[in-house]
């Protein structure tokens, strides 16, 4: 007898074999395999650096004039043209070097994670967007170059001034994590707050409310006309902090936010947090939030808002570019600092969250570290900064640079809000220090549930405090503190 049919006791028959291998094949389909694509590389091989060039007045960072430069840009709300324009300037400054290799992508992490892992990252990266690489981990694993030489280099416009002296307040500190080195340079400058249409408020014969009582009164008035007071990105409730955190700071002082950032025990139990949560919860309870908001994503909520179905939305200054296609011509976009609670607030009306956006990094293992920094120095010149502002309606880290540009309504009101805030700019760090805690735990599981009416403020606070405590105890999360 041959062995072609499956005998009960005849060992392994052909059919059995095929059946079993088919079964094995089936069960090996699932997702684990994809991780192998980024399995640990052979670390360091091929990552040889180019030699440093001669330091001269025109070349203060000592860029190797014949070395190639590779730049990767996040192709999001700001596009990539501004970077291409700046790269042309690099080509002009170093004519002997090959043309700058430019790449734009929305998938920063999936494209660059394997290159970091293999020790061959590009020379300059705009680490932004939904697929941003975790900066805390990059710093913790010593993957980033210290940008201090760049900050101490003379600026392009005025050789008597250092680059660091041309930047907006807070930018340098934001790029630090623990002590002196500066790991990140935030190129854009974002104004967060309550965004609204001046036209819509005019129609209600109203001004932007400075206290919470006025806010509630205005929402009531709007409700009678069938307009909701507020909407927000219900599926991404971590947009709520854009107005909620400065509101907390205004009520209780900036120390409250700092103790929250430092993950201090019971930081969230501060009365100011409770007062702010209760105020927002009241919007929900009184029906001032656009119906269905918890089921909307950021684009959908912005569209409902530009259609005039809600008055206010917590957002950042990118909204002017992002919502441009649905925004009516006469919308007259404006941003305001959050309304205060009452006269006993610790900080004045105007207290605002503004901070750097679009984090640029130079990898420690990049071949041409000096080139990456030089490219940033070019981008931080007045001319490049103006070019950016003109193209994408957003400020840059370069202080000033708005003269002679025709400002759009949103940008103009952002500049005005910054002026009004003066010293009272707060800069909560949860969203760049502890991404998961801020977005998923505080945002979605805490604030999102409360604003959907499924948690009371007290429940939300104790839940969030629990998340913060867990993060504080988690030894796998690197901790940072306000200096």
């Amino acid at each position, binding site marked *: 007898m041959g062995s072609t049919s499956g005998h009960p006791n005849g060992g392994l028959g052909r059919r059995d074999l095929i059946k079993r291998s088919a079964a094995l094949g089936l069960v090996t389909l699932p997702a684990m395999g994809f991780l192998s694509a980024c399995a*640990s590389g052979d670390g360091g091989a091929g990552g040889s650096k180019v030699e440093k060039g001669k330091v001269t007045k025109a070349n203060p960072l000592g860029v190797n004039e014949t070395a190639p430069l590779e730049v990767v840009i996040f192709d999001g709300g700001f596009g990539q043209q501004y970077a291409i324009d700046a790269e042309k300037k690099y080509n002009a400054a170093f004519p002997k070097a090959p043309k700058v290799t430019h790449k734009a992508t929305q998938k920063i*992490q999936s494209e660059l994670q394997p290159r970091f892992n293999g020790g061959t990252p590009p020379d300059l990266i705009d680490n932004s967007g939904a697929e941003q690489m975790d900066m805390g981990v990059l710093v913790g694993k010593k993957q980033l170059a210290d940008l201090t030489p760049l900050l101490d280099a003379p600026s392009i416009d005025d050789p008597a001034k250092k680059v660091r002296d041309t930047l907006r307040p807070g930018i340098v500190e934001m790029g630090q994590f623990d002590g002196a080195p500066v790991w990140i340079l935030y190129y854009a400058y974002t104004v967060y707050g309550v965004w609204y249409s001046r036209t819509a408020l005019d129609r209600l014969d109203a001004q932007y409310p400075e206290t919470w009582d006025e806010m509630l009164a205005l929402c009531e008035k709007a409700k009678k006309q069938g307009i909701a007071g507020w909407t927000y990105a219900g599926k991404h409730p971590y947009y709520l902090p854009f107005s909620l955190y400065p509101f907390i700071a205004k009520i209780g002082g900036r120390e409250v936010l700092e103790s929250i950032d430092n993950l201090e025990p019971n930081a969230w139990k501060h009365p100011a947090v409770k007062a702010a949560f209760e105020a927002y919860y009241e919007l929900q309870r009184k029906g001032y939030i656009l119906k269905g908001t918890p089921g909307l994503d950021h684009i959908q909520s912005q569209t409902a808002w530009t259609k005039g179905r809600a008055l206010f939305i917590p957002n950042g200054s990118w909204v002017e570019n992002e919502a441009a296609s649905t925004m009516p011509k006469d919308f007259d976009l404006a941003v305001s600092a959050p309304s205060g609670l009452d006269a006993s607030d610790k900080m004045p009306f105007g207290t605002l969250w503004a901070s750097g956006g679009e984090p640029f990094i130079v990898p420690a293992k990049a071949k041409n570290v000096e080139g990456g920094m030089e490219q940033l120095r070019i981008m931080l010149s007045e001319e490049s900064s103006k070019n950016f502002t003109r193209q994408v309606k957003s400020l840059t880290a370069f202080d000033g640079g708005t003269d002679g540009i025709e400002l759009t309504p949103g940008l103009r009101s952002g500049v005005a809000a910054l002026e009004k805030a003066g010293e009272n700019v707060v800069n909560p760090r949860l969203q760049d220090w502890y991404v*998961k805690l801020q977005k998923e735990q505080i945002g*979605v599981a805490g604030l999102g549930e409360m604003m*959907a009416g499924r948690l009371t403020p007290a429940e939300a606070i104790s839940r969030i405090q629990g998340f913060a405590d867990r993060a504080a105890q988690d030894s796998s999360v690197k901790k940072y503190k306000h200096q």
Partner: protein
Amino acid sequence: MQHGKYRFIVGFLAAPLALYTLFVVWPFVQSIYYSFTDWTGLSPEFSMVGLDNYARLMDDDVFWKSLQHSLLFALLLPVVTIGLALFFAFMINVGGRPRRGAAVSGVRGSSFYKVAYFFPQVLSIAIVALLFQFAYNPESGAINSGLRAIGLGDVQPLWLGDPDLALWCVMAVLVWSTVGFFVVLFSAGMASIPRDFYEAALLDGASRVTTFFRITLPLLRDTIQSGWVYMGILALGAESFAVVQIMTTGPGGPDYSTTVLVLYVYQSAFRDGAAAYATTIGVALLIVTLAFAAAVMRLGRRERLEY
């Protein structure tokens, strides 16, 4: 005459086995190895940490929640999808009233239905998820607008924004998009059942229900079993990832209501910079998938009917 059998088999299978080991088994071994390290995925440096990741897994509420959801997907989705597909396929192929000339036929318009059911299959799952995301929009989406149009303006669920509904919404989309494939698969299976069986049943006066349970179902057993495993793995793996990732953006629905294991693997590896922990979750997923496949294979074992 059995001697030399294994040498024969090995000789034939050596090359495919080598490829299989290199591209399928080796990554698994590697993944399991990494689950014992503190590898971040962002730098090639890591050290062994023993069972730390597994201890963390045991203590992770989100992991248990996503495991629950994944199990629900793997158990419920095949039942619903395959049940529906069997019903549709039966109606299309043999469920019609007897007509002159043909003893066994589908319901009227069955060729149209066949195309209609298969249609979602030609769309990429990403597009399907996007389309449904718009439909579920509580403010201006098709479903709530439809409810308003028929006078149910008071019933305006939040759908994906409601932790009690979100998971079901996602499952419904998966059923919608996969049922067509199984209709076609089972149609093919039914076509190979000899017509005389049905004719004989018909002569005996069997009803449609009896025909289905006494003839169609038993003879389709093998096809259903393969379909079951296939659907279960889809529900545990790629498809559930795509719909959850696209439709319930954020960390997987309000209050973790739609997080599934694959999504959690992805988020740990590519958002939290915790690749080693991600491989640990991947190992858990592997165990679940193996257990599922083994259970289905074992339950389905029985004598085979030759015809």
